[in-house]
Protein backbone atom coordinates (compact mmCIF):
# COMPACT_ATOMS: atom_id res chain seq x y z
CA UNK A 1 0.00 0.00 0.00
CA UNK A 2 1.59 3.22 -1.08
CA UNK A 3 1.12 6.74 0.22
CA UNK A 4 -1.13 7.88 -2.59
CA UNK A 5 -3.57 5.20 -1.50
CA UNK A 6 -3.64 6.75 1.97
CA UNK A 7 -4.33 10.16 0.50
CA UNK A 8 -7.10 8.77 -1.63
CA UNK A 9 -8.64 7.23 1.46
CA UNK A 10 -8.40 10.56 3.25
CA UNK A 11 -10.19 12.26 0.40
CA UNK A 12 -12.86 9.57 0.55
CA UNK A 13 -13.33 10.23 4.25
CA UNK A 14 -13.64 13.92 3.52
CA UNK A 15 -16.22 13.31 0.81
CA UNK A 16 -18.23 11.05 3.10
CA UNK A 17 -18.14 13.69 5.81
CA UNK A 18 -19.61 16.17 3.34
CA UNK A 19 -22.50 13.86 2.64
CA UNK A 20 -23.10 13.18 6.31
CA UNK A 21 -22.85 16.86 7.11
CA UNK A 22 -25.44 17.78 4.51
CA UNK A 23 -27.66 15.00 5.80
CA UNK A 24 -27.56 16.45 9.30
CA UNK A 25 -28.87 19.72 7.93
CA UNK A 26 -32.20 17.98 7.52
CA UNK A 27 -33.38 18.75 11.01
CA UNK A 28 -32.92 21.80 13.18
CA UNK A 29 -31.73 19.58 16.01
CA UNK A 30 -28.67 18.31 14.17
CA UNK A 31 -28.12 21.09 11.66
CA UNK A 32 -25.35 22.91 13.50
CA UNK A 33 -23.45 19.75 13.98
CA UNK A 34 -23.89 18.99 10.29
CA UNK A 35 -22.42 22.32 9.37
CA UNK A 36 -19.46 21.64 11.64
CA UNK A 37 -18.93 18.25 10.04
CA UNK A 38 -18.88 19.81 6.59
CA UNK A 39 -16.33 22.34 7.79
CA UNK A 40 -14.24 19.51 9.20
CA UNK A 41 -14.46 17.71 5.88
CA UNK A 42 -13.15 20.82 4.21
CA UNK A 43 -10.27 21.04 6.65
CA UNK A 44 -9.35 17.42 6.08
CA UNK A 45 -9.37 17.91 2.32
CA UNK A 46 -7.24 21.06 2.50
CA UNK A 47 -4.65 19.53 4.78
CA UNK A 48 -4.44 16.37 2.69
CA UNK A 49 -3.96 18.41 -0.45
CA UNK A 50 -1.22 20.48 1.09
CA UNK A 51 0.59 17.42 2.35
CA UNK A 52 0.15 15.43 -0.84
CA UNK A 53 1.43 18.04 -3.26
CA UNK A 54 5.02 19.07 -3.44
CA UNK A 55 4.43 22.68 -2.70
CA UNK A 56 6.92 24.75 -4.68
CA UNK A 57 6.30 27.99 -2.78
CA UNK A 58 4.39 28.26 0.46
CA UNK A 59 4.32 32.05 0.49
CA UNK A 60 1.60 32.56 -2.05
CA UNK A 61 -0.50 29.77 -0.64
CA UNK A 62 -0.28 31.03 2.90
CA UNK A 63 -1.01 34.60 1.87
CA UNK A 64 -3.99 33.52 -0.19
CA UNK A 65 -5.40 31.38 2.58
CA UNK A 66 -4.91 33.97 5.30
CA UNK A 67 -6.34 36.86 3.37
CA UNK A 68 -9.33 34.85 2.17
CA UNK A 69 -10.05 33.44 5.60
CA UNK A 70 -9.85 36.83 7.27
CA UNK A 71 -12.17 38.49 4.79
CA UNK A 72 -14.64 35.63 5.01
CA UNK A 73 -14.60 35.55 8.80
CA UNK A 74 -15.00 39.30 9.15
CA UNK A 75 -17.84 39.45 6.66
CA UNK A 76 -19.60 36.55 8.35
CA UNK A 77 -19.25 38.17 11.75
CA UNK A 78 -20.47 41.59 10.84
CA UNK A 79 -23.34 40.87 8.52
CA UNK A 80 -26.79 41.63 9.89
CA UNK A 81 -29.17 38.72 10.11
CA UNK A 82 -31.48 40.35 7.63
CA UNK A 83 -28.67 40.66 5.08
CA UNK A 84 -27.90 36.95 5.09
CA UNK A 85 -29.19 36.21 1.59
CA UNK A 86 -26.96 38.83 0.00
CA UNK A 87 -24.00 37.56 1.99
CA UNK A 88 -24.57 34.04 0.74
CA UNK A 89 -24.78 35.50 -2.74
CA UNK A 90 -21.44 37.20 -2.51
CA UNK A 91 -19.67 34.22 -0.98
CA UNK A 92 -21.06 32.23 -3.82
CA UNK A 93 -19.57 34.68 -6.30
CA UNK A 94 -16.14 34.06 -4.83
CA UNK A 95 -16.57 30.30 -4.94
CA UNK A 96 -17.56 30.44 -8.59
CA UNK A 97 -14.73 32.85 -9.32
CA UNK A 98 -12.21 30.53 -7.72
CA UNK A 99 -13.35 27.64 -9.88
CA UNK A 100 -13.07 29.75 -12.99
CA UNK A 101 -9.59 30.83 -11.97
CA UNK A 102 -8.52 27.24 -11.35
CA UNK A 103 -9.67 26.29 -14.83
CA UNK A 104 -8.02 29.38 -16.26
CA UNK A 105 -4.74 28.74 -14.46
CA UNK A 106 -4.68 25.15 -15.69
CA UNK A 107 -5.30 26.42 -19.22
CA UNK A 108 -2.43 28.84 -18.91
CA UNK A 109 -0.20 26.18 -17.40
CA UNK A 110 -0.89 23.74 -20.22
CA UNK A 111 -0.40 26.49 -22.80
CA UNK A 112 2.91 27.42 -21.26
CA UNK A 113 4.07 23.82 -21.23
CA UNK A 114 3.16 23.83 -24.89
CA UNK A 115 1.72 20.35 -24.59
CA UNK A 116 -1.30 19.49 -26.69
CA UNK A 117 -4.51 19.45 -24.69
CA UNK A 118 -6.67 16.32 -24.39
CA UNK A 119 -10.26 16.82 -25.49
CA UNK A 120 -11.53 15.81 -22.09
CA UNK A 121 -9.24 18.28 -20.32
CA UNK A 122 -10.34 21.00 -22.72
CA UNK A 123 -13.95 20.20 -22.04
CA UNK A 124 -13.40 20.35 -18.30
CA UNK A 125 -11.55 23.63 -18.49
CA UNK A 126 -14.17 25.14 -20.76
CA UNK A 127 -17.09 24.10 -18.61
CA UNK A 128 -15.32 25.07 -15.40
CA UNK A 129 -14.44 28.55 -16.52
CA UNK A 130 -17.80 29.16 -18.25
CA UNK A 131 -19.91 28.10 -15.27
CA UNK A 132 -17.53 29.67 -12.78
CA UNK A 133 -17.57 33.00 -14.58
CA UNK A 134 -21.34 33.01 -14.95
CA UNK A 135 -21.65 32.27 -11.24
CA UNK A 136 -19.22 35.04 -10.44
CA UNK A 137 -20.97 37.93 -12.16
CA UNK A 138 -24.46 36.47 -11.69
CA UNK A 139 -23.96 36.29 -7.95
CA UNK A 140 -22.66 39.82 -7.83
CA UNK A 141 -25.68 41.13 -9.64
CA UNK A 142 -27.97 39.19 -7.35
CA UNK A 143 -26.12 40.63 -4.39
CA UNK A 144 -26.48 44.12 -5.81
CA UNK A 145 -30.20 43.66 -6.29
CA UNK A 146 -30.77 42.39 -2.78
CA UNK A 147 -28.56 45.03 -1.24
CA UNK A 148 -30.38 47.72 -3.17
CA UNK A 149 -27.29 48.72 -5.18
CA UNK A 150 -29.06 47.72 -8.37
CA UNK A 151 -32.79 48.25 -8.82
CA UNK A 152 -34.75 45.28 -7.54
CA UNK A 153 -37.10 45.59 -10.47
CA UNK A 154 -36.49 43.41 -13.48
CA UNK A 155 -34.26 45.30 -15.89
CA UNK A 156 -35.10 44.53 -19.47
CA UNK A 157 -34.10 45.82 -22.88
CA UNK A 158 -35.30 45.01 -26.38
CA UNK A 159 -34.19 41.72 -27.93
CA UNK A 160 -32.73 40.73 -24.59
CA UNK A 161 -33.54 37.08 -25.06
CA UNK A 162 -32.05 36.94 -28.52
CA UNK A 163 -28.92 38.71 -27.40
CA UNK A 164 -28.41 36.39 -24.47
CA UNK A 165 -28.95 33.37 -26.67
CA UNK A 166 -26.37 34.63 -29.15
CA UNK A 167 -23.88 35.30 -26.38
CA UNK A 168 -24.39 31.80 -25.09
CA UNK A 169 -23.83 30.28 -28.53
CA UNK A 170 -20.70 32.36 -28.99
CA UNK A 171 -19.33 31.12 -25.66
CA UNK A 172 -20.08 27.55 -26.67
CA UNK A 173 -18.36 27.99 -30.01
CA UNK A 174 -15.27 29.53 -28.50
CA UNK A 175 -15.18 26.81 -25.89
CA UNK A 176 -15.39 24.14 -28.55
CA UNK A 177 -12.61 25.84 -30.44
CA UNK A 178 -10.42 25.93 -27.38
CA UNK A 179 -11.03 22.26 -26.77
CA UNK A 180 -9.57 21.70 -30.18
CA UNK A 181 -12.78 20.99 -32.05
CA UNK A 182 -11.75 23.41 -34.79
CA UNK A 183 -9.03 25.89 -35.61
CA UNK A 184 -9.23 29.41 -34.30
CA UNK A 185 -7.68 31.31 -37.18
CA UNK A 186 -4.74 33.48 -36.27
CA UNK A 187 -5.72 34.21 -32.71
CA UNK A 188 -3.60 32.86 -29.90
CA UNK A 189 -5.42 30.46 -27.69
CA UNK A 190 -4.89 32.79 -24.76
CA UNK A 191 -6.66 35.65 -26.52
CA UNK A 192 -9.52 33.38 -27.42
CA UNK A 193 -9.67 32.22 -23.85
CA UNK A 194 -9.82 35.81 -22.58
CA UNK A 195 -12.69 36.57 -24.94
CA UNK A 196 -14.38 33.39 -23.86
CA UNK A 197 -14.10 34.40 -20.20
CA UNK A 198 -15.31 37.90 -20.98
CA UNK A 199 -18.40 36.59 -22.71
CA UNK A 200 -19.08 34.24 -19.82
CA UNK A 201 -18.83 37.06 -17.31
CA UNK A 202 -21.16 39.21 -19.36
CA UNK A 203 -23.59 36.34 -19.70
CA UNK A 204 -23.71 35.85 -15.92
CA UNK A 205 -24.68 39.46 -15.35
CA UNK A 206 -27.21 39.52 -18.17
CA UNK A 207 -28.86 36.35 -17.00
CA UNK A 208 -29.67 37.79 -13.61
CA UNK A 209 -30.41 41.40 -14.51
CA UNK A 210 -33.91 40.76 -15.85
CA UNK A 211 -35.07 38.84 -12.79
CA UNK A 212 -37.12 40.60 -10.11
CA UNK A 213 -35.90 41.11 -6.56
CA UNK A 214 -38.49 38.74 -5.14
CA UNK A 215 -37.02 35.88 -7.13
CA UNK A 216 -33.46 36.55 -5.96
CA UNK A 217 -33.39 33.85 -3.29
CA UNK A 218 -34.22 31.31 -5.98
CA UNK A 219 -31.58 32.76 -8.25
CA UNK A 220 -28.97 32.57 -5.52
CA UNK A 221 -29.91 28.99 -4.88
CA UNK A 222 -29.55 28.23 -8.57
CA UNK A 223 -26.21 30.03 -8.81
CA UNK A 224 -25.17 28.03 -5.79
CA UNK A 225 -25.93 24.90 -7.74
CA UNK A 226 -23.86 26.32 -10.63
CA UNK A 227 -20.89 27.01 -8.39
CA UNK A 228 -21.05 23.37 -7.29
CA UNK A 229 -20.92 22.31 -10.92
CA UNK A 230 -18.02 24.67 -11.52
CA UNK A 231 -16.16 23.11 -8.60
CA UNK A 232 -16.86 19.65 -10.01
CA UNK A 233 -15.50 20.81 -13.36
CA UNK A 234 -12.42 22.11 -11.59
CA UNK A 235 -12.18 18.67 -10.04
CA UNK A 236 -12.11 17.12 -13.50
CA UNK A 237 -9.48 19.67 -14.47
CA UNK A 238 -7.10 18.83 -11.66
CA UNK A 239 -8.27 15.23 -11.39
CA UNK A 240 -9.31 15.38 -7.77
CA UNK A 241 -12.12 13.12 -6.56
CA UNK A 242 -13.12 15.10 -3.51
CA UNK A 243 -13.70 18.13 -5.70
CA UNK A 244 -15.84 16.13 -8.06
CA UNK A 245 -17.85 14.59 -5.26
CA UNK A 246 -18.51 17.72 -3.29
CA UNK A 247 -19.13 19.69 -6.44
CA UNK A 248 -21.70 17.14 -7.51
CA UNK A 249 -23.24 17.16 -4.05
CA UNK A 250 -23.65 20.91 -4.06
CA UNK A 251 -24.82 20.91 -7.65
CA UNK A 252 -27.55 18.38 -6.92
CA UNK A 253 -28.46 19.91 -3.59
CA UNK A 254 -28.72 23.36 -5.11
CA UNK A 255 -30.91 22.09 -7.89
CA UNK A 256 -33.28 20.26 -5.56
CA UNK A 257 -33.44 23.31 -3.32
CA UNK A 258 -34.13 25.58 -6.24
CA UNK A 259 -36.93 23.35 -7.41
CA UNK A 260 -38.40 23.24 -3.91
CA UNK A 261 -38.23 27.01 -3.60
CA UNK A 262 -39.80 27.48 -7.01
CA UNK A 263 -42.65 25.21 -5.98
CA UNK A 264 -43.14 27.16 -2.76
CA UNK A 265 -43.30 30.36 -4.80
CA UNK A 266 -45.42 28.82 -7.49
CA UNK A 267 -42.87 29.48 -10.25
CA UNK A 268 -41.51 27.06 -12.75
CA UNK A 269 -37.79 26.35 -12.69
CA UNK A 270 -37.42 27.15 -16.38
CA UNK A 271 -38.94 30.48 -15.64
CA UNK A 272 -36.18 31.36 -13.22
CA UNK A 273 -33.23 29.45 -14.69
CA UNK A 274 -33.71 30.84 -18.18
CA UNK A 275 -34.89 34.16 -16.88
CA UNK A 276 -33.07 35.53 -19.91
CA UNK A 277 -35.34 33.91 -22.36
CA UNK A 278 -38.38 34.63 -20.29
CA UNK A 279 -37.68 37.94 -18.76
CA UNK A 280 -41.00 38.07 -16.93
CA UNK A 281 -41.03 38.52 -13.25
CA UNK A 282 -43.26 37.40 -10.47
CA UNK A 283 -43.51 38.20 -6.85
CA UNK A 284 -43.84 35.87 -3.94
CA UNK A 285 -46.08 38.34 -2.30
CA UNK A 286 -49.84 38.47 -2.44
CA UNK A 287 -50.66 42.09 -2.67
CA UNK A 288 -53.85 43.87 -1.76
CA UNK A 289 -53.69 47.11 -3.58
CA UNK A 290 -50.07 47.87 -3.17
CA UNK A 291 -49.43 46.60 0.33
CA UNK A 292 -47.43 43.39 0.40
CA UNK A 293 -48.10 40.56 2.83
CA UNK A 294 -45.89 37.66 3.81
CA UNK A 295 -47.48 34.34 2.89
CA UNK A 296 -46.31 31.05 4.39
CA UNK A 297 -47.20 27.40 4.05
CA UNK A 298 -47.90 24.62 6.52
CA UNK A 299 -44.29 23.52 6.81
CA UNK A 300 -43.08 26.99 7.66
CA UNK A 301 -45.94 27.61 10.06
CA UNK A 302 -45.17 24.31 11.74
CA UNK A 303 -41.55 25.25 12.22
CA UNK A 304 -42.42 28.62 13.69
CA UNK A 305 -44.90 27.03 16.09
CA UNK A 306 -42.84 24.03 17.06
CA UNK A 307 -39.88 26.11 18.07
CA UNK A 308 -41.87 28.64 20.05
CA UNK A 309 -42.04 28.66 23.81
CA UNK A 310 -45.50 30.16 24.13
CA UNK A 311 -48.36 30.09 21.67
CA UNK A 312 -51.70 31.84 21.99
CA UNK A 313 -54.55 30.78 19.73
CA UNK A 314 -57.15 33.35 18.72
CA UNK A 315 -60.17 31.58 17.27
CA UNK A 316 -62.76 33.46 15.26
CA UNK A 317 -65.81 32.95 13.12
CA UNK A 318 -63.72 31.32 10.36
CA UNK A 319 -62.86 28.47 12.71
CA UNK A 320 -66.56 27.81 13.08
CA UNK A 321 -67.24 28.10 9.37
CA UNK A 322 -64.44 25.68 8.59
CA UNK A 323 -65.43 23.43 11.51
CA UNK A 324 -61.75 23.06 12.20
CA UNK A 325 -62.03 22.92 15.98
CA UNK A 326 -61.00 19.29 16.27
CA UNK A 327 -57.95 19.79 14.10
CA UNK A 328 -57.01 22.88 16.08
CA UNK A 329 -57.13 21.03 19.36
CA UNK A 330 -55.03 18.26 17.87
CA UNK A 331 -52.30 20.65 16.72
CA UNK A 332 -52.20 22.32 20.11
CA UNK A 333 -51.99 18.97 21.85
CA UNK A 334 -48.98 18.02 19.79
CA UNK A 335 -47.35 21.36 20.58
CA UNK A 336 -48.02 20.85 24.27
CA UNK A 337 -46.42 17.46 24.13
CA UNK A 338 -43.36 19.21 22.76
CA UNK A 339 -43.34 21.51 25.75
CA UNK A 340 -44.92 24.57 24.18
CA UNK A 341 -47.15 26.60 26.49
CA UNK A 342 -50.54 26.93 24.78
CA UNK A 343 -53.43 29.26 25.62
CA UNK A 344 -56.61 30.22 23.86
CA UNK A 345 -57.64 33.88 23.81
CA UNK A 346 -61.39 34.24 23.46
CA UNK A 347 -62.69 37.59 22.35
CA UNK A 348 -66.13 38.39 23.74
CA UNK A 349 -67.68 38.83 20.31
CA UNK A 350 -65.69 36.33 18.28
CA UNK A 351 -68.02 34.35 16.07
CA UNK A 352 -71.62 35.23 15.41
CA UNK A 353 -73.35 34.62 18.69
CA UNK A 354 -72.43 35.12 22.31
CA UNK A 355 -70.37 32.18 23.46
CA UNK A 356 -69.86 30.88 19.90
CA UNK A 357 -66.22 29.99 20.56
CA UNK A 358 -67.13 28.29 23.84
CA UNK A 359 -69.55 25.97 22.12
CA UNK A 360 -67.03 25.24 19.43
CA UNK A 361 -64.08 24.55 21.70
CA UNK A 362 -66.18 22.59 24.18
CA UNK A 363 -67.16 20.37 21.30
CA UNK A 364 -63.50 19.77 20.60
CA UNK A 365 -62.87 19.10 24.26
CA UNK A 366 -60.49 21.98 24.86
CA UNK A 367 -60.17 22.20 28.66
CA UNK A 368 -61.82 25.23 30.19
CA UNK A 369 -58.70 26.28 32.03
CA UNK A 370 -56.91 26.98 28.77
CA UNK A 371 -59.45 29.62 27.75
CA UNK A 372 -58.73 33.22 28.66
CA UNK A 373 -60.85 36.24 28.04
CA UNK A 374 -59.70 39.55 26.69
CA UNK A 375 -58.85 41.18 30.01
CA UNK A 376 -56.98 38.17 31.26
CA UNK A 377 -54.77 37.73 28.23
CA UNK A 378 -54.19 41.10 26.64
CA UNK A 379 -51.12 41.81 28.74
CA UNK A 380 -49.61 38.46 27.85
CA UNK A 381 -49.27 39.08 24.14
CA UNK A 382 -46.03 40.98 24.32
CA UNK A 383 -44.47 37.98 26.03
CA UNK A 384 -45.94 35.55 23.53
CA UNK A 385 -43.71 34.05 20.86
CA UNK A 386 -46.38 33.19 18.34
CA UNK A 387 -50.05 34.05 18.07
CA UNK A 388 -52.08 31.78 15.83
CA UNK A 389 -55.17 33.58 14.59
CA UNK A 390 -57.64 31.09 13.14
CA UNK A 391 -60.38 32.64 11.05
CA UNK A 392 -60.61 35.74 13.22
CA UNK A 393 -60.46 39.19 11.76
CA UNK A 394 -62.40 42.04 13.34
CA UNK A 395 -61.53 40.96 16.86
CA UNK A 396 -57.82 41.42 16.13
CA UNK A 397 -58.12 44.51 13.96
CA UNK A 398 -55.88 47.30 15.32
CA UNK A 399 -57.96 49.72 13.26
CA UNK A 400 -60.37 49.75 16.18
CA UNK A 401 -57.90 51.96 18.00
CA UNK A 402 -58.45 54.74 15.51
CA UNK A 403 -61.54 56.76 16.37
CA UNK A 404 -62.69 57.10 12.76
CA UNK A 405 -63.10 53.40 12.23
CA UNK A 406 -66.52 51.75 12.19
CA UNK A 407 -65.23 49.41 14.84
CA UNK A 408 -63.75 52.23 16.88
CA UNK A 409 -64.00 51.61 20.58
CA UNK A 410 -64.40 47.87 20.32
CA UNK A 411 -61.71 46.36 22.53
CA UNK A 412 -59.51 43.97 20.55
CA UNK A 413 -57.03 41.26 21.32
CA UNK A 414 -53.66 42.99 20.99
CA UNK A 415 -52.04 40.30 18.89
CA UNK A 416 -49.96 42.90 17.09
CA UNK A 417 -47.87 43.13 20.25
CA UNK A 418 -46.68 39.53 19.96
CA UNK A 419 -43.37 38.65 18.35
CA UNK A 420 -44.93 36.68 15.52
CA UNK A 421 -48.45 36.28 14.33
CA UNK A 422 -49.69 33.59 11.97
CA UNK A 423 -53.10 34.28 10.47
CA UNK A 424 -55.11 31.48 8.95
CA UNK A 425 -57.81 32.56 6.56
CA UNK A 426 -58.74 31.99 2.96
CA UNK A 427 -57.97 35.38 1.51
CA UNK A 428 -57.48 38.98 2.46
CA UNK A 429 -61.21 39.63 2.48
CA UNK A 430 -62.65 41.46 5.45
CA UNK A 431 -64.75 40.03 8.29
CA UNK A 432 -68.17 40.97 9.66
CA UNK A 433 -67.41 44.67 9.90
CA UNK A 434 -66.35 44.79 6.25
CA UNK A 435 -63.11 46.72 6.76
CA UNK A 436 -59.53 45.98 5.86
CA UNK A 437 -57.17 44.82 8.60
CA UNK A 438 -53.76 46.55 8.91
CA UNK A 439 -52.54 43.61 10.99
CA UNK A 440 -52.12 41.58 7.81
CA UNK A 441 -49.42 43.91 6.53
CA UNK A 442 -47.28 44.14 9.63
CA UNK A 443 -43.73 42.85 9.66
CA UNK A 444 -44.28 40.14 12.22
CA UNK A 445 -47.40 38.83 10.49
CA UNK A 446 -47.44 35.71 8.37
CA UNK A 447 -50.54 34.86 6.34
CA UNK A 448 -51.35 31.18 6.06
CA UNK A 449 -53.97 31.13 3.33
CA UNK A 450 -56.53 28.38 2.88
CA UNK A 451 -59.62 26.86 4.43
CA UNK A 452 -58.87 26.59 8.12
CA UNK A 453 -59.76 22.90 8.30
CA UNK A 454 -57.46 21.95 5.48
CA UNK A 455 -54.67 24.24 6.68
CA UNK A 456 -54.99 22.91 10.19
CA UNK A 457 -54.81 19.31 9.02
CA UNK A 458 -51.67 20.07 7.06
CA UNK A 459 -50.28 21.87 10.05
CA UNK A 460 -50.91 18.85 12.27
CA UNK A 461 -48.88 16.67 9.98
CA UNK A 462 -46.04 19.14 9.68
CA UNK A 463 -45.90 19.98 13.37
CA UNK A 464 -45.57 16.34 14.19
CA UNK A 465 -42.60 16.10 11.89
CA UNK A 466 -40.97 19.38 12.76
Amino acid at each position, binding site marked *: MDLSFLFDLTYLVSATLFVVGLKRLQSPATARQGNALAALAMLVAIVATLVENDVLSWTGILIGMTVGSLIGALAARMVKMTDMPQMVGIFNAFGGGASA*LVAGAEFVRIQQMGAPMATSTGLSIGLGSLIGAVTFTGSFVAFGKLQGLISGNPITFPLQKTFNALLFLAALALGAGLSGAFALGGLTPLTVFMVFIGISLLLGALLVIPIGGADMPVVISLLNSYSGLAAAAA*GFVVGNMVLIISGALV*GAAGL*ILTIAMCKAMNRSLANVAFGTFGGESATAQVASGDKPVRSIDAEQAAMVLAYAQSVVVVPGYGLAVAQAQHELRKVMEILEERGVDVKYAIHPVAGRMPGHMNVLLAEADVPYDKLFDLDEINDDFQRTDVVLVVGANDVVNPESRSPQSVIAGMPILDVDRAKNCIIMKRSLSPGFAGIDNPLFYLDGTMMFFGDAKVSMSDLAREVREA
Partner: protein
Amino acid sequence: MGEMVVGLYVFVLAALAGSEVISKVPPTLHTPLMSGANAISGIAVIGALVISAQANTPIVQILGVVAIAMAMVNVVGGFMVTDRMLQMFKKK
Protein backbone atom coordinates in the same frame (compact mmCIF):
# COMPACT_ATOMS: atom_id res chain seq x y z
CA MET B 1 -11.33 3.01 -17.42
CA GLY B 2 -10.22 6.55 -18.13
CA GLU B 3 -9.94 9.28 -15.49
CA MET B 4 -12.84 11.00 -17.17
CA VAL B 5 -15.18 8.05 -16.95
CA VAL B 6 -14.25 7.38 -13.38
CA GLY B 7 -14.94 11.02 -12.60
CA LEU B 8 -18.27 10.71 -14.30
CA TYR B 9 -19.23 7.69 -12.24
CA VAL B 10 -18.26 9.44 -9.09
CA PHE B 11 -20.06 12.59 -10.16
CA VAL B 12 -23.32 10.80 -10.92
CA LEU B 13 -23.29 8.80 -7.72
CA ALA B 14 -22.51 11.85 -5.63
CA ALA B 15 -25.31 13.77 -7.31
CA LEU B 16 -27.72 10.92 -6.60
CA ALA B 17 -26.69 10.80 -2.98
CA GLY B 18 -26.88 14.59 -2.75
CA SER B 19 -30.38 14.85 -4.11
CA GLU B 20 -31.60 12.05 -1.87
CA VAL B 21 -30.12 13.73 1.16
CA ILE B 22 -31.52 17.14 0.37
CA SER B 23 -35.01 16.17 -0.70
CA LYS B 24 -36.07 15.73 2.91
CA VAL B 25 -35.06 19.14 4.21
CA PRO B 26 -37.95 21.31 5.48
CA PRO B 27 -38.39 24.79 3.95
CA THR B 28 -37.42 26.62 7.12
CA LEU B 29 -34.00 25.13 6.79
CA HIS B 30 -33.71 26.03 3.13
CA THR B 31 -31.72 29.17 3.76
CA PRO B 32 -29.15 27.63 6.11
CA LEU B 33 -28.97 24.65 3.81
CA MET B 34 -28.31 26.84 0.81
CA SER B 35 -25.69 28.66 2.77
CA GLY B 36 -24.08 25.41 3.95
CA ALA B 37 -24.01 24.00 0.44
CA ASN B 38 -22.54 27.26 -0.71
CA ALA B 39 -19.71 26.92 1.80
CA ILE B 40 -19.04 23.43 0.50
CA SER B 41 -18.79 24.76 -3.02
CA GLY B 42 -15.71 26.60 -1.77
CA ILE B 43 -14.08 23.19 -2.20
CA ALA B 44 -12.64 24.82 -5.31
CA VAL B 45 -9.90 25.80 -2.88
CA ILE B 46 -8.51 22.30 -3.32
CA GLY B 47 -8.19 22.88 -7.02
CA ALA B 48 -6.59 26.23 -6.37
CA LEU B 49 -4.13 24.67 -3.94
CA VAL B 50 -3.16 21.99 -6.42
CA ILE B 51 -2.63 24.59 -9.12
CA SER B 52 -0.63 26.88 -6.85
CA ALA B 53 1.48 24.07 -5.51
CA GLN B 54 2.44 23.01 -8.99
CA ALA B 55 2.58 26.50 -10.50
CA ASN B 56 5.33 26.64 -13.09
CA THR B 57 5.08 30.34 -13.92
CA PRO B 58 4.35 33.53 -11.98
CA ILE B 59 1.11 34.10 -13.84
CA VAL B 60 -0.22 30.67 -12.86
CA GLN B 61 1.09 31.29 -9.38
CA ILE B 62 -0.79 34.57 -9.12
CA LEU B 63 -3.97 33.13 -10.56
CA GLY B 64 -3.69 30.31 -8.05
CA VAL B 65 -3.19 32.59 -5.07
CA VAL B 66 -6.15 34.76 -6.05
CA ALA B 67 -8.21 31.63 -6.51
CA ILE B 68 -7.17 30.41 -3.07
CA ALA B 69 -8.11 33.71 -1.46
CA MET B 70 -11.47 33.83 -3.18
CA ALA B 71 -12.28 30.25 -2.34
CA MET B 72 -11.29 30.76 1.27
CA VAL B 73 -13.69 33.69 1.57
CA ASN B 74 -16.39 31.35 0.42
CA VAL B 75 -15.33 28.54 2.74
CA VAL B 76 -14.72 30.43 5.95
CA GLY B 77 -17.47 32.99 5.46
CA GLY B 78 -19.93 30.34 4.32
CA PHE B 79 -19.49 28.02 7.24
CA MET B 80 -19.54 30.84 9.76
CA VAL B 81 -22.67 32.47 8.40
CA THR B 82 -24.40 29.12 8.28
CA ASP B 83 -23.51 28.52 11.87
CA ARG B 84 -24.90 31.88 12.87
CA MET B 85 -28.17 31.14 11.14
CA LEU B 86 -28.41 27.75 12.74
CA GLN B 87 -27.95 29.13 16.20
CA MET B 88 -31.40 30.62 15.83
CA PHE B 89 -32.88 27.16 15.54
CA LYS B 90 -31.62 25.93 18.83
CA LYS B 91 -34.41 24.18 20.67
CA LYS B 92 -34.78 25.54 24.12
